[in-house]
C-alpha cells in the first residue's frame, strides 16, 4: 500500500511539470501580453513594471522561475490585482469554491445514492422509470441553462432566495448554486448506484446474508451498499475534474468570487502569475484527489490489492 502511494506521488511530479510547461508555453506563444491593453502605458513605465515583475529577463530565466515557484508553491504577485500575491488570492478564493463544490457533491451523494438504490430495489416499477428519466434530464440540461432558470424562478419570481450573492459557507446564497452544480452529479450517481446495486443484489453473498435471516433493510444497508457503491467511489475521481468545469460556469452565473471566476478573469486579463498559480493549484488538487480516491477504493473493496 505504502509503495503504491509513493509510486503514485512520483508520477504526479512529472505530470505537474507537463501541465505547468504547457500553460506557460501557451501564454508565451500567444501574441501580446498583459501590457498590450486598451490603456497604453508610457514606454518607460512599462519597462519599469516589466523589470519589477522580472518580465524583461530571458525566456529560460522566466521559465526556470516558474518551476522554482512551483517547487516552493509561491507564485509571486498578480499583475492585475496590484499588491496582492497570487497565494493570497488562491487562499481567499479556494475556500469559496471548495464550499460550493463540497455542498454540491454532498447533495449529489445523498440524493443520487438514495434514488439510485430505490430504483434498483424496485426495478421496472414507476419509481425506477421516473428516477432514470429524471437522471437523463439532469445529464441533458447544461448547468448554464439550469442556473439562470433557477434564478428566474426562485430568485426573481418567488423571491425566496437571492439571485446572485456570496454570503459565506452556510447561507441562503449557497442553495441555488449548489443545486445547479449538483444536478449532473445527482444524475450520474443515481445511474451508477442503480446499476451497481442491481449487480450486487444478485450476487451470492447477498443470498447468503438473506439466508442468515437478516432483515431486508440490513441486507441493503450493511451488505449490498458497500459493494454497490464501488462505481460511485471510482466516479468521484473524475468527478472532481468535472466539478472544476462546473464551478467555472456556476461561479460566473451566480457571481461567486471563487477560483473559477478568478481563473477566467485572469485568462482574459493575461495575468500570467495568477493563471499559472491557479492552474498549478487545480492540478495539484485534481491529482491529489485522484490518489485519495484510489486509496479509498482499496479500503472499500478488500479484493483490490496494489
Amino acid at each position, binding site marked *: 500500500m505504502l509503495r503504491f502511494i509513493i509510486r503514485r506521488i512520483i*508520477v504526479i511530479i512529472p*505530470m505537474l511539470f507537463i*501541465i505547468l510547461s*504547457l*500553460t506557460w508555453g*501557451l*501564454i508565451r*506563444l*500567444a501574441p501580446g501580453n498583459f501590457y498590450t491593453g486598451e490603456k497604453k502605458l508610457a514606454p518607460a513605465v512599462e519597462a519599469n513594471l516589466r523589470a519589477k515583475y522580472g518580465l524583461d529577463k530571458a525566456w529560460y530565466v522566466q521559465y526556470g522561475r516558474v518551476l522554482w515557484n512551483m517547487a516552493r508553491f509561491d507564485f509571486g504577485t498578480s499583475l492585475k490585482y496590484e499588491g496582492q500575491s497570487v497565494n493570497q488570492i488562491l487562499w481567499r478564493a479556494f475556500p469559496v469554491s471548495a464550499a460550493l463544490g463540497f455542498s454540491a457533491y454532498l447533495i449529489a451523494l445523498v440524493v443520487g445514492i438514495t434514488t439510485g438504490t430505490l430504483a434498483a430495489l424496485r*426495478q421496472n416499477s414507476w419509481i425506477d422509470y421516473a428516477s432514470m428519466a429524471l437522471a*437523463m*434530464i439532469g*445529464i*441533458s*440540461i*447544461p448547468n*448554464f*441553462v439550469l*442556473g*439562470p*432558470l433557477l*434564478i*428566474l424562478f426562485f430568485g*426573481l419570481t418567488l423571491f425566496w432566495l437571492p*439571485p446572485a450573492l456570496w454570503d459565506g459557507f452556510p447561507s441562503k446564497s449557497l442553495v441555488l448554486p449548489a443545486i445547479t452544480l449538483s444536478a449532473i452529479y445527482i444524475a450520474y450517481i443515481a445511474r451508477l448506484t442503480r*446499476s451497481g446495486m*442491481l*449487480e450486487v443484489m444478485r450476487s451470492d453473498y447477498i443470498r447468503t446474508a438473506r439466508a442468515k435471516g437478516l432483515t431486508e433493510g440490513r441486507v441493503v444497508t450493511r451488505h449490498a451498499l458497500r459493494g454497490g457503491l464501488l462505481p460511485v467511489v471510482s466516479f468521484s*475521481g*473524475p468527478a472532481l*475534474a468535472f466539478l*472544476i*468545469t462546473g464551478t*467555472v*460556469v456556476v461561479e*460566473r*452565473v451566480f457571481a461567486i468570487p471563487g477560483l473559477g471566476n478568478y*481563473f*477566467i478573469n485572469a*485568462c*482574459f486579463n*493575461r495575468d500570467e502569475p495568477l*493563471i499559472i498559480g491557479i*492552474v498549478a493549484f*487545480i*492540478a495539484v488538487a*485534481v*491529482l491529489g484527489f*485522484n490518489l485519495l480516491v484510489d486509496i479509498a477504493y482499496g479500503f472499500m473493496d478488500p479484493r483490490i490489492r496494489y
Partner: protein
Amino acid sequence: MNDKISKTEGHHNEPTKPALTPLGTPPEAPALPRGDEVIHTGPEFAVGEGDVHSAEAGEIVAGSSLWKDAWRRLLKNKLAVFGMIVVILLVVASLIGPAIIKRATGYSYDLIPRENALNKSFPPFRGADGSFSWIHPMGTDNAGRDILARVLSGGQISLMVALISTFVSLLIGISYGATAGYLGGRIDDLMMRVVDVLYSLPYIIIVIVLLAMLPAKTPTGQLAELFIALGAVSWLTMARIVRGQVLSLKNQEFVLAARATGVTTPKIIFRHLVPNTLGPVIVYTTLTVPTVMLSEAFLSFLGLGVRPPRVSWGSLAAEGAQNLAIYPWQLIFPGVTMALMLFCLNFLGDGLRDALDPQMRRE
C-alpha cells in the same frame, strides 16, 4: 448471431491467448480474405470461428443480418425511436430552417432591422404593435434579431462542431487504440499508461488557457481551433474501447492468415482489425456527440468558443442569461432546444448501445 456477438464482447480486457493454428496452414491460404474484401464485412466476420470459406460465402448475407438485427432491436426501444425522430427533426430544421425563415419573413440570424421601433426585444408571437403575430415565434433579441433564426443557425454551428470534433476524436482514438492493442507488449503498456496519465489531467483548464491565449483571427479559424481542441481531448475513452476490441480480435485466424500472406502491419491494423471494431465504436460515437456538444456550449458560454457574428447554442444561452430578468425568452428557447437535443441524443445513444451490443445492455 447473438451468442456469437457476445463471444467477442466477453473478452474485452482479458489477455489474449496465443493462436492455436500454426503459422502457415496451407489449405486455407488461397482462400484468404484480402483487405478489400474484409472491409465490407460487419463485426460478425471476426467472430466466425475460423471457417474462412463459409464466412466468405455468407459474407453479404451475414453482414446485413447483423445490422438488420440491431435495427429491429432499436425500433423496439420506444425512447430511442423518439430520440431518433427528434434528433432528425432538429437536424433537418437547423439545416433548412434558416433558409425558410429568410424566405418567409426576411430575417436571418444576423439581420438587425433598420426601423428603430423594431430594434428591441419582442416576446414570442408578438409583432411590433404588441399584438399577436407569427413573425417571431421565439421573440427577438436586444437588437431585434429573430431568435428562431438564431437558434436554428446556432444549431448548425453546434452540430458541426460536435460532429467534426467527434470525427477528430475518432481518428485519433481508433489509430491509437488499434496500434496499441495490435502491437501489444511493452509498447501497449507504454501507450496505455500515457492514456491513464492524460485521463487524470484537468484538460479543460488547458483548453481554456489555449482558447483564451490564442484566439483565432477569423470566426472560421476559431471554429477550427474548437474542433482540434475538443477532438484532441475526447479520444481517450475511444482509444481504450478500440484497444480492448483489437486485443480480443488480433489472435483470431483471419489476422493470422493476413500475416501469413505478408500483409504489412499498418494494413492489418487499419483494413482488417479496425473495421471489425465498428459496433462498439458506433455506440461510443453517438455518446460522444452530446458530450462534445456540451463542451462547445460550455466554452462558448464563457466567451471562448464560437464568437460573434457566428452563433451557437452556448453563445445564445450566454447572451440570454444576461437579459434574464427582463427578457427570459432569450435564454429559454436556445437553452431548451439544446437540452432537448442532448436529451434525445443520449437516449438514442443508449438505445444504440442496447441494440448493437447486447452484452453491454443495462439491466
